[in-house]
């Protein structure tokens, strides 16, 4: 998370250097986390049983990927970013599945994390969201911290994005040792789908309603700033209509699937297939690949699979 320490803002530099022409050459210089250990990985978990054993599936998925301790070191402060933006009961699939969330919290604790925090800057009123989605109960049960989007936790930072520059950032994500992105897969009226990278809109404050005016670039700007250690896309239940808020069981389909990757672009790209959509049809996935945040070409990654 060093991008805010540049002595001269990248945008400023690019302006000096002649703007957009050079801009398109830039992506190569941004190394994504996915490449850190040579090759990134992507793991898929699927259960043919319904209802599926979510806890077992989540645990198995981490096992085949090398175990949580491969990603979380002893003494780490881990911040988990679920999508709990809506005060909706879990079965409506508007928010991250609480069983997945709870299992990830427990896995982090088992891996020796010093502190596990659950944080989200919700769209609906935060206390309602945390109470209704199960996040508050999980925090109470596991001893994880629930971080509310208080104004004292929003701090102006330079995102050095193409569209977003100085913007209030929800500080726990910046100060964490490890960040786990834990979105739920849903359809979205303006960004097509809301998966992993879109989830970072819940990690900033400020005039978020203006982000829709250039949604794909905004998502990529945020995804460049927040680089999670892992992205785990919850597709146990997915929202196929009335997204992203839903509200009716008829908006929900059961997919019984989880996607885990250290490549944020690959995770999102793989989740597209749940909706029978090509990754190339989703603007921000395309853009993110172009900017070098990851790849939509799964052959470049180690692939693991779990069936339950």
């Amino acid at each position, binding site marked *: 998370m060093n991008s805010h320490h540049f002595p001269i803002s990248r945008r400023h530099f690019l302006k000096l250097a002649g703007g957009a022409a050079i801009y398109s050459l830039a992506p190569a210089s941004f190394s994504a986390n996915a490449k850190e250990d040579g090759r990134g990985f992507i793991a898929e978990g699927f259960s043919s049983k319904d209802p599926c054993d979510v806890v077992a599936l989540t645990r198995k998925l981490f096992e085949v990927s090398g175990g949580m301790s491969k990603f979380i070191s002893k003494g780490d402060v881990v911040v988990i970013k679920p999508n709990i933006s809506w005060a909706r009961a879990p079965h409506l699939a508007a928010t991250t599945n609480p069983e997945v969330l709870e299992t990830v919290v427990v896995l982090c604790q088992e891996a020796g994390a010093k502190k596990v925090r659950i944080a989200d800057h919700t769209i609906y009123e935060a206390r309602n969201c945390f109470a209704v989605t199960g996040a508050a109960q999980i925090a109470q049960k596991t001893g994880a911290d629930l971080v509310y989007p208080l104004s004292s936790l929003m701090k102006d930072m330079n995102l050095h994005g193409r569209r977003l520059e100085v913007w209030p950032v929800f500080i726990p994500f910046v100060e964490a040792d490890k960040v786990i992105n834990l979105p739920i897969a849903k359809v979205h009226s303006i960004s097509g789908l809301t998966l992993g990278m879109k989830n970072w809109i819940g990690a900033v404050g400020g005039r978020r309603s203006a982000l*829709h*005016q250039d949604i794909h670039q905004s998502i990529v700007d945020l995804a460049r700033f927040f680089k999670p250690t892992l992205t785990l896309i919850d597709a146990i239940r997915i929202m196929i209509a009335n997204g992203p808020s839903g509200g009716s069981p008829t908006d929900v389909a059961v997919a019984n699937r989880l996607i885990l990757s250290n490549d944020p672009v690959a995770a999102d790209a793989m989740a597209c297939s749940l909706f029978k959509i090509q990754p190339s049809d989703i603007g921000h996935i395309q853009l993110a690949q172009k900017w070098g945040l990851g790849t939509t070409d799964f052959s470049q990654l180690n692939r693991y699979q779990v069936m339950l």
Partner: protein
Amino acid sequence: MKIKHLIYIRRISQVLFLLFFLFLLIETRLPKDFFIDYSLEVSRQQDLRLEIPVTFFFDIDPLVWLSALLSSQKWISGTGWALAIIGLTLFLGRFFCGFICPFGTLHHAIGAVRPSTKGSEHVSRNEKIPAHKIKYAIFLLVMVSALFGLNLAGIMDPISFLFRFLAVSIMPAINIGIKEVFDAMAASDFKILSLLSYTAEILVSPILGFGYPAYQTGFFIGLVGLVILFLNRIRPRFWCRILCPLGAMFGLISYFSPLRLERNENRCTGCNKCMKHCQGAASPKPDIVWENSECVRCFNCQGVCPENALTFKFKWHGSNKPAPDIGRRAVLISLGTGVAFPFLSRLDGQIHHSTDARLIRPPGSLPEDQFLELCQRCGMCMKVCPTNAIQPSFGEAGIAGFWTPVLNMTIGYCEYSCTLCTSICPTGAIELLSGKDKRERPVRIGSSFVDRGKCLPWTANGPCIVCEEVCPTSPKAIVFQEGDVIGFKKEPIRLKQPYVNLQQCIGCGICENKCPVKGVPAIRVISSGESRSPKNQILLFS
């Protein structure tokens, strides 16, 4: 029991009830450590509810009970307590004022801890004056008004007054003061300061309110309250003696109380100590007429009398003299105004003609005429609303509805799953709803309309559709259709433009709240279509 002990008990009772009041006031909010068991959600309906009886002081308040009974002919649940208080008052006199009333305790403390006058000057401030009649006039006015369908009790009921004063004015004001300090600390580059600011916010916000609530007319509510507290400098317990309609009600009932002050004129040396410490200006001194209806049962006079000339005793025979000093002229005036107010206040046409478009009541609110019969303007719904949408009305509800709750969607919005305000209204002006009721009836509080002159996609200013994203109903009340607009360089642009499906819209106002156009948003909710009013409907069928 020695009189000294009784005075100690009174003080302890006053402090405890005041603290209890403050505790309930603070607890009137959605706490942060609140959860529902998600694994049971599908099988069992669960709504967010406060587990503490936050309406306690309203339940024991006979003025709330009587005014609601007269105006709506409804028996409010929980007011059995109020009858118990009336029963005790018949027996003990105005003990509520001296022992329980938290507002009275505040006045008592301000007047007694640092009196503004001393000696004979102070004695003269504690003499009964003709102005004491005013409270009876106010009480009668409120009751007559209530009888004709306008419940004004809450404006001057001490419990409502104090709750509103603290919840809607003083606490948010302190909160905003603290916020500015926090913001300065959070912005600092010293990590310890920003950490401290977070810790402090965690500690302070559960007490003073999450998210720094703001209330329109909060300044005015605060000013009125502060002036009333200041009046203690002019006369101790100015409010209780001269203005309080609840005190007047208890004063009238006290007429029947057998607990009287027995005075031994032979022992009295005229030292005036009793006059100096009298809280109610009830003339305890033996050579003037003691007024049972003014006495707030503080027992100070008996306690301070060096000659033991004064003793409270139950006397079962004979009647109290004098009767409460109401004044015939004051009665006539208050009867007249009490009849006139309800009808004068309807001249704005809110009830019989058309409703103000901004008059958006909380979900579950009764039809407007019944609402005004019951609403105490206490501010509980305003305090408990987690999004700060519920505001004391200024002009939206007309003169009759001054300080009654209205929703302002630019400040907050009505959270789709939340029914907290419906669960705590002390008089039932907002009817209890379950989340299921609210969703499935559905309960509409208004209707939303797109202002195409401001909306970004409609004015070729680019894509947006935030309103559609946040719309909570399923299927969404706000839908978009792709439309072609001509851009500013004459180029054709295809944009998603919002439309509101009025059959789906419930008027929750989150679209207005989240619209990037601030101030006068490009999509706005008006009260039209609210389900509580058969007259205020738009569609032929829905």
